[in-house]
C-alpha cells in the first residue's frame, strides 16, 4: 500500500480497523488479506464514485423493504430518519443510510444501485445537498484508484469479461450502453433500450439513439430503427425539444425575472412547478421500466420482488412497458408541454399586465384541456396583480417596484393640487386584456379618491364598504379577476366601493370645503353674476383705470375692491370666499390703459383647486370679455345719462340740433347693440349653461364627473362669449365695435365740454351786454367765438358721420358673420340685433343669410349643443 496522501492513509487505517472488527472472533483469518480484498473491491467499483446517492430513492427503497416486515418497522424507521435529519452533524447522511441499506439482510434484495443512477438525472427532484461533497469524494477516489492502477486494471478486465445478465442494470449507465451497443447494429433495437433512451431524452440527455441537435436543442434519431419504432420515436422525440426549451426559458428567465418583475417571476415559478410535475411522471415511468427489467433479468428473485412490493407498488403486476404504451402515457404531457412552450415564447419579452394579457389570450382556445393548463398559469400570473390591485383599492397604496401595474404614479409631482390630475395615471400598455378600460378607470379612481381624501382633504374617516370589500378580496382569489362573470360579488362590490368613495369625496368637498359655494362665488365675481357689486366696483375704479397701465398700484386697487365689497350685497358673502377675492393685473405693454390689464382674481387653492385650478386662464379670459362688454354698457349708459340731463340746456343752441340728432341716433344704435349682446351673454349663455352645470353636478357620481361638467360649462360659455378659438373673427369685430363706442364717448365728451363752454360764454356775454351794453369789440369777439363754435360743430358732424359710417360697416360685417354662423343661437342673435331690418336695408348681403336656402345650408351642420337647444332638450347624463 504505497499511498502518499495522509487522508488516503487514514482511510486505509480505517479499513484495516474495519477488517479487524469484522474478523474479531475468527482465528486463522489474516487481516491483511481482508484489507487487500476490501481495497480491491473498492477499486473495482470506483466507477461508482461519479454517481450520487439520492436519499429520497434510498429511503423509499428501505420503506418498501420494511413494509414486508411490518407497518411498525416502517413507522420506526421514518421516525429515526426524521430524527437523524434534524442532526445535521453527518455530512454524508444519505451515503451512510445507503450503506446500511445495501448491507441489509432482509428478504427483499437490496435496492440496486442502478435504480439510484437511473433517477440521478432527475436531480431537480432530488436533494442536491450532497452533490458537492460527493464530487470531493470522487476526486479522492480516482486518485486512489490511480494509485492502485495495476490491481484495478486487472479487476476491471475481469468484470468486463464476465458480464452476467443482470449487469445490464449494473451501476454505470455507460456499461449498459456499451453492452447494448453490440445490438445497435441490428435494426431491431430492444424496446427497453429505446424507452430508456426516450426517457433520458425527455430530460434533455443525449443517448446513442437520440442525438442532440446542437443548433436547435432538439433531438434526432441517430440510429437505425425499424419502421414502427422509428415512427413512435419520432412522435415522442418532440418532448425532448420541448423540455429543453422550457428549461432554457426557466434558466434564462431566472436571471431576467428579477428585473422583469413579480408577474414574470410568477410565471417562471409556475413553469418550474409544471416541470417538476413532468419529472414526476418520468420518474414513475422510469421506476416501472426498471422494475420490469429487474423482473425479467433477475428472474430468480422476481418472486421476492413481487412479494415485496405488492403492498406499495402494483405496477409490477402490470404487463411490460412498451413503446406504444409510453407514447400513450406521454400524450398528455406532450400536449401540456407544447402549450407551456407556446405561452412562454409569447411571454418572453413581456412583463406585468402585458404578460397577463398574453397569457389570457391563450385561455379561450377551444380545447378544454389546454384551457385548463393556461388557466392554471393565468391564476399564478394574476396572483401578484391581484395583490397589487387589492392594496390599491383598499388603501390607495401602490406596491409596484417593477412598473407592472396598470396604475402608475408620477413621483415628480409633489404638490397636492395636481394629485388628482397628474399624479396617478392609467398605464395603458399594462392593462390586462380581461380588464376593460372603463374598469381600469374605475379602479384608478377608487385608489385616487382614497389618496385624495387622505392627502388633500385630510379626511381619514373609514368608508363603510371598505371592510366588505376587504373580505371579498380575501375570499376571492386571483381567478376572480379574469372570470367571465362580470356581475360577480367582487365586481359589484368593487363598483359599490368606487361609488361610495367617490360620493365620499364629493361629500367632503361639499360640506367641508363648500364646493358649491365656491362655484357660485366664481360665477358671481368672475362671471359678473353679482350685478350691484360689479357696477359699484366699476364706478369706483373708473378714475384709477383711466390712468396708463404702468401707473396702477395693485395694492390700491385691492383697497378699492374691498370697499366695493363692503358697500354692496357682497358683504354678506362667506368670509372664506371673500378672502379669496383679489385683484390681478395682467402684463401690460406700452399704451395700455388700466382697463386693459385689470381683472378680478379668485384664489383657488386647496381641495377645490383640483376642480378649478386648471381653469384659471379660462376664467381670466371670460372675465375680461365680460368686463369689457360691461364697461361699454356702462360708458354708453353714462353718455345717455349726460345727454338726457343736458337735454334741457342744449335746445338753447339751435345749431346744435342736427349734431345732437346724429349723436342720439348713433348712441341709440350702440345701446341697442350692447344691450342685446349683454342679454345674450348673461342670459342665453350664462344662465343656460349654469343651469346645466348645476344639474350635472348634482347628478355627478365622482369628482371626475364634476370636473368634466365644469370644463364643459366653461367651454360652452367661452364659445358663447366669443372668446374661444373658433370665434376669433367675431371677437375682433366685437372689439372694433367697442372701439367705436369709446370713440363716440370721447367725441361726445369733447362736444359736451365745448357746448358747456359755449353755453357759459353766451350766458356770460348776455350778462355782460345787459350790464355794460355792447360794442364793436364785444360783438367781434362774439362773432369769432360763434364762428369757432360752428367750425367745431361742423367738424364734429363730420367726425360723427365718419364714425357712424365706420360703425355701421363694422356692425354689418359682424351681423353677417353672426348670421352665417353655424350656431343657431348666434343666428338668432343676429336677427335680434337687426330686428327691424335697419341694417339689412342698407346691405343686400345681409338678406341672403336669412333666406330659406341659406338657412337650410347652415342649419344642417349646426351642432345640437347650442345653449338654447340644449336648454330645451332633456339633459342627458354626462
Amino acid at each position, binding site marked *: 500500500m504505497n499511498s502518499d496522501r495522509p487522508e488516503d492513509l487514514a482511510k486505509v487505517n480505517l479499513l484495516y480497523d474495519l477488517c479487524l472488527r*469484522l474478523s474479531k472472533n475468527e482465528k486463522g483469518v489474516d487481516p491483511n488479506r481482508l484489507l487487500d480484498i476490501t481495497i480491491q473491491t473498492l477499486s473495482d467499483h470506483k466507477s461508482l464514485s461519479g454517481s450520487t446517492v439520492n436519499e429520497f430513492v434510498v429511503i423509499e427503497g428501505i420503506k418498501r423493504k420494511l413494509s414486508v416486515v411490518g407497518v411498525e418497522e416502517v413507522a420506526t424507521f421514518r421516525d429515526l430518519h426524521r430524527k437523524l435529519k434534524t442532526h445535521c452533524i453527518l455530512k454524508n447522511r444519505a451515503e451512510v443510510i445507503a450503506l446500511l441499506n445495501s448491507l441489509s439482510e432482509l428478504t427483499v434484495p437490496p435496492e440496486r444501485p442502478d435504480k439510484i443512477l437511473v433517477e440521478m438525472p432527475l436531480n431537480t427532484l432530488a436533494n442536491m445537498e450532497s452533490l458537492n461533497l460527493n464530487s470531493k469524494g470522487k476526486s479522492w477516489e480516482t486518485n486512489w484508484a490511480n494509485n492502485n492502477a495495476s490491481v484495478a486494471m486487472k479487476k476491471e478486465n475481469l468484470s468486463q469479461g464476465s458480464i452476467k445478465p443482470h449487469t445490464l442494470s449494473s451501476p454505470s449507465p455507460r456499461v449498459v450502453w456499451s453492452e447494448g451497443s453490440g445490438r445497435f447494429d441490428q435494426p431491431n433495437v430492444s424496446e427497453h433500450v429505446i424507452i430508456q433512451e426516450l426517457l433520458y431524452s425527455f430530460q434533455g440527455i443525449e443517448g446513442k439513439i437520440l442525438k442532440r441537435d446542437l443548433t436547435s436543442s432538439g433531438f434526432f434519431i441517430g440510429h437505425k430503427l425499424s419502421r414502427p419504432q422509428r415512427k413512435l420515436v419520432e412522435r415522442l422525440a418532440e418532448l425532448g425539444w420541448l423540455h429543453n426549451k422550457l428549461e432554457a426559458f426557466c434558466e434564462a428567465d431566472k436571471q431576467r425575472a428579477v428585473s422583469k418583475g413579480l408577474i414574470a417571476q410568477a410565471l417562471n415559478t409556475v413553469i418550474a412547478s409544471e416541470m417538476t410535475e413532468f419529472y414526476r411522471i418520468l420518474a414513475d415511468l422510469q421506476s416501472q421500466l426498471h422494475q420490469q427489467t429487474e423482473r425479467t433479468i433477475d428472474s430468480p428473485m422476481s418472486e421476492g420482488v413481487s412479494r415485496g412490493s405488492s403492498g406499495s407498488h402494483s405496477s409490477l403486476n402490470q404487463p411490460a412497458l412498451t413503446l406504444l404504451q409510453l407514447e400513450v402515457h406521454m400524450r398528455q404531457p406532450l400536449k401540456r408541454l407544447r402549450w407551456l412552450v407556446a405561452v412562454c415564447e409569447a411571454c418572453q419579452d413581456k412583463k406585468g399586465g402585458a404578460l397577463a394579457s398574453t397569457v389570457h389570450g391563450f385561455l379561450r382556445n377551444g380545447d378544454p384541456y389546454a384551457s385548463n393548463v393556461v388557466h392554471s398559469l393565468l391564476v399564478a400570473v394574476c396572483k401578484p396583480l391581484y395583490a397589487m390591485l387589492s392594496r390599491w383599492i383598499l388603501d390607495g397604496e401602490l406596491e409596484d417596484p417593477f412598473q407592472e401595474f396598470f396604475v402608475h404614479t408620477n413621483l415628480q409631482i409633489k404638490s397636492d393640487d395636481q394629485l388628482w390630475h397628474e399624479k396617478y395615471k392609467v398605464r395603458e400598455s399594462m392593462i390586462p386584456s380581461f380588464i376593460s378600460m372603463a374598469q381600469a378607470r374605475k379602479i384608478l379612481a377608487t385608489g385616487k379618491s382614497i389618496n385624495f381624501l387622505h392627502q388633500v382633504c385630510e379626511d381619514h374617516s373609514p368608508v363603510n364598504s371598505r371592510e366588505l370589500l376587504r373580505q371579498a378580496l380575501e375570499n376571492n382569489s386571483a381567478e376572480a379577476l379574469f372570470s367571465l362573470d362580470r356581475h360577480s360579488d367582487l365586481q359589484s362590490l368593487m363598483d359599490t366601493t368606487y361609488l361610495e368613495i367617490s360620493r365620499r369625496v364629493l361629500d367632503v368637498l361639499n360640506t367641508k370645503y363648500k364646493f358649491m359655494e365656491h362655484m357660485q362665488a366664481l360665477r358671481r365675481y368672475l362671471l359678473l353674476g353679482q350685478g350691484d357689486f360689479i357696477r359699484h366696483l366699476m364706478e369706483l375704479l373708473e378714475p384709477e383705470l383711466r390712468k396708463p397701465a404702468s401707473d396702477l398700484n395693485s395694492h390700491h386697487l385691492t383697497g378699492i375692491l374691498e370697499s366695493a365689497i363692503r358697500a354692496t350685497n357682497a358683504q354678506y358673502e362667506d368670509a372664506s370666499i371673500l378672502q379669496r377675492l383679489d385683484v390681478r393685473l395682467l402684463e401690460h405693454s406700452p399704451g395700455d390703459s388700466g382697463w386693459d390689464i385689470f381683472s378680478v382674481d379668485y384664489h383657488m387653492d386647496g381641495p377645490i383647486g383640483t376642480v378649478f385650478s386648471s381653469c384659471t386662464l379660462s376664467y381670466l379670459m371670460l372675465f375680461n370679455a365680460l368686463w369689457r362688454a360691461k364697461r361699454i354698457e356702462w360708458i354708453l349708459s353714462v353718455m345717455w345719462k349726460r345727454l338726457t340731463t343736458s337735454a334741457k340746456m342744449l335746445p338753447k343752441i339751435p345749431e346744435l340740433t342736427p349734431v345732437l340728432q346724429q349723436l342720439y341716433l348713433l348712441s341709440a344704435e350702440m345701446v341697442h347693440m350692447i344691450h342685446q349682446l349683454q342679454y345674450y351673454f348673461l342670459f342665453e349663455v350664462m344662465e343656460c349653461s349654469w343651469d346645466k352645470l348645476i344639474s350635472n353636478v348634482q347628478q355627478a357620481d365622482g369628482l371626475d364627473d364634476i370636473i368634466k361638467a365644469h370644463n364643459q360649462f366653461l367651454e360652452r360659455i367661452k364659445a358663447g362669449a366669443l372668446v374661444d378659438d373658433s370665434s376669433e373673427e367675431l371677437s375682433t369685430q366685437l372689439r372694433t365695435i367697442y372701439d367705436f363706442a369709446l370713440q363716440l364717448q370721447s367725441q361726445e365728451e369733447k362736444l359736451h365740454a365745448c357746448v358747456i363752454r359755449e353755453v357759459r360764454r353766451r350766458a356770460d356775454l348776455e350778462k355782460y351786454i345787459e350790464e355794460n351794453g355792447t360794442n364793436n369789440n364785444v360783438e367781434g369777439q362774439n362773432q369769432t367765438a360763434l364762428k369757432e363754435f360752428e367750425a367745431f360743430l361742423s367738424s364734429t358732424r363730420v367726425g360723427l358721420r365718419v364714425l357712424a359710417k365706420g360703425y355701421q360697416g363694422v356692425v354689418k360685417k359682424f351681423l353677417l358673420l353672426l348670421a352665417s354662423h353655424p350656431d343657431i343661437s348666434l343666428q338668432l342673435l343676429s336677427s335680434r340685433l337687426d330686428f327691424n331690418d335697419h341694417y339689412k336695408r342698407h346691405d343686400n348681403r345681409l338678406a341672403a343669410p336669412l333666406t330659406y336656402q341659406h338657412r337650410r345650408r347652415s342649419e344642417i351642420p349646426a351642432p345640437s349643443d347650442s345653449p338654447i337647444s340644449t336648454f330645451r332638450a332633456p339633459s342627458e347624463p354626462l
Partner: protein
Amino acid sequence: MADTSDPTRAREALALLSRISQLLNTGLDKESLAICIRLCEAGVHPEALAKAILEVRREINAVKNEANSSTEDKGTVSRQLL
C-alpha cells in the same frame, strides 16, 4: 471529521444509525458501524463499501468453513484413529 466535533451529538447520531442498522438487519456491530460512518464521511462510496464488506464477510465465512471442515475432518480422522 464530523463525529469528533461534538461528542454527545455524534453519539446520538451513532445511536440512531445503529437502531436503523438493527432494523435493517445489517449485521454490523456498533464499532464496525462507527468505522463505516467515518469511511462514508471520508468520501468512500457506500455501494463500493458495502460490496467490500460483503466480500470480507464471504472471505471470513470461507475461512471459517474451511477451518470447521478441517477440524471436522481432523475429528473424524482422530475418531477413526481411535
